């Protein structure tokens, strides 16, 4: 196990390096620079600015400098938000995004797994069809369509919940963003759970458990649930990526000051370091999370050899 974990840990590095390199060279290949503005700067000042941010060095040297900084946990200064380092900006945005994404993930897993199991246990019943239709709707309606519709219904017409912003951080402000972020994932997870649960329920060890005379509740919770959850566990990696990307739109729609907003603004402003910072930060998050998911999977499934 430790060996496997170590091997997977080593395997994550090339992914990270390619990710950082791609983002770095792509953004610098783009037309326009961080100091372009309506007002033309005198050439000497521009040269000084570029020198101050090391933009006058050869690209490779800049890349090396950036990697060196990263190794020390330094994302560099932001070009647009003067006086702020990218690390500071990430640290103000991330807690907000984390709360939103974490809650959405929790909701997605809890609701998705229960709905999927329920549908599988009553296969081809009305409950099953209802769950599956709702899930198909969840997959087919993108979250940026769902979010305005939810706002329209619950904030504008019914007036039950606030339409946007974080307010003073009350729970009511989080309800709509979390739900719109979680809905597509709930849909996927419930479909996955249903499929694998149906397959597990047909297997021999479940028949044995029933033949022993175990109560149905024990059969489901003790014997069927764990193997049925394996596909869900391996889906958690892509789900995280989905929630993180989704948060870019959801944060914009609901006016939530999280990391996703910084990314879009930063890219529009050619704020190289800020965009790099967000991409690298999210990239590392996703890679690390995928690693953890794989390890957990190996732990849960005795058939996986490492």
């Amino acid at each position: 196990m430790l060996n496997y974990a170590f091997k997977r840990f080593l395997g994550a590095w090339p992914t990270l390096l390619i990710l950082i390199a791609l983002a770095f060279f792509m953004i610098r290949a783009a037309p326009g620079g961080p100091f372009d503005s309506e007002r033309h700067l005198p050439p000497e000042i521009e040269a000084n600015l570029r020198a101050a941010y090391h933009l006058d060095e050869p690209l490779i040297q800049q890349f090396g400098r950036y990697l060196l900084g990263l190794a020390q946990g330094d994302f560099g200064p932001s070009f647009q938000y003067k006086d702020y380092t990218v690390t500071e900006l990430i640290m103000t945005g991330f807690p907000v995004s984390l709360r939103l994404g974490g809650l959405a993930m929790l909701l997605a897993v809890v609701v998705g797994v229960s709905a999927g199991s329920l549908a599988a246990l009553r296969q081809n019943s009305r409950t099953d069809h209802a769950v599956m239709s709702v899930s198909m709707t969840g997959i087919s309606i993108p979250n940026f369509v769902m979010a305005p519709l939810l706002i329209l219904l619950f904030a504008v017409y019914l007036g039950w919940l606030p339409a946007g912003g974080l307010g003073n951080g009350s729970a009511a402000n989080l309800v709509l963003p979390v739900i719109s972020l979680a809905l597509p994932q709930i849909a996927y997870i419930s479909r996955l759970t249903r499929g694998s649960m149906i397959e597990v329920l047909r297997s021999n060890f479940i028949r044995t458990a029933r033949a022993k005379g175990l109560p149905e509740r024990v059969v489901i919770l003790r014997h069927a649930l764990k193997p049925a959850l394996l596909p869900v566990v391996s889906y958690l990696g892509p789900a995280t990526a989905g929630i993180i990307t989704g948060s870019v739109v959801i944060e914009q729609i609901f006016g939530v000051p999280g990391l996703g907003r910084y990314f879009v603004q930063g890219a529009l402003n050619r704020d190289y370091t800020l965009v790099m910072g967000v991409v690298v930060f999210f990239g590392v998050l996703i890679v690390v999370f995928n690693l953890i998911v794989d390890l957990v999977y190996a732990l849960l499934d005795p058939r996986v050899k490492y």
Partner: protein
Amino acid sequence: MSVTPETVAAIPADKGRSLWTDAMIRLRRNRAAVTAAAVLAIMTLMVIVGPWFSPYDYDYTHWDMILISPDLASGHVFGTDSIGRDIFVRTLYGGRISLLVGVVATIVSLVIGIAYGATAGYFGGRIDHIMMRIVDILYGMPFMFFVILLMVLFGRNILLIFVAIGAINWLDMARIVRGQTLSLKRKEFIEAAEALGVPPFRIIRRHIVPNLLGVVVVYVTLTIPQVILVESFLSFLGLGVQEPMTSWGALVNEGAQEMENAPWTLFFPAVCLAATLFCFNFIGDGLRDALDPKDR
């Protein structure tokens, strides 16, 4: 009962049914999939020919009819947007772009995925190992961010959207195709081709790829909605197609800004987008069930 020649003759000669006829029969029994296919066909037809019959153009602004609600009298059946453009015709044009992106970007991902997967699977060994390791590495990347970056940095070129979306979607296809190729290349007809001295890439093209189509077709119907979704996601962020041209994502974005006083600006494009995605998902599910020999 003994089997005499007469009883055998009495059974009508059963024509051999191929995998495809079999699948089509099963697909036709799936009402959801058939309905979805019909709706999709109507929608596609509307999107293609509809604009020719509309009295308005997608960029024509009707200054004294701003944000009017849907009504038949004025000819604006879906109403107008904040600068007086007809939403019906804009929804149709948006549909053209969205469906076009869906098809073209899927073809891009198809070509890359099949070429890559079939090559890796056919040659096997070290080549396969290295090629699949690359896929593994790429898998962990948050590609959406790169697409957004591409759009922001290099302008909103529609061609770039096609290529960028297609280029991030080929990984699954490559994996599936490789798996199928691995089992295909052990078949006798491949061996025969090899014995005749057919060069490897011709074997891949002539003998392997045509036999992959079953799996690929299912996957294509599931890729198209994903691709449409990505495009509308980009357009929603304002990074997709450029004004005055539009796509469903862009229309949803415009509608979301006006929804409090003009909900129809959001409603119609949103319904079209969701309905299309619905249809593709239903067809994909139906095809998968129909082609899956496991549950007959």
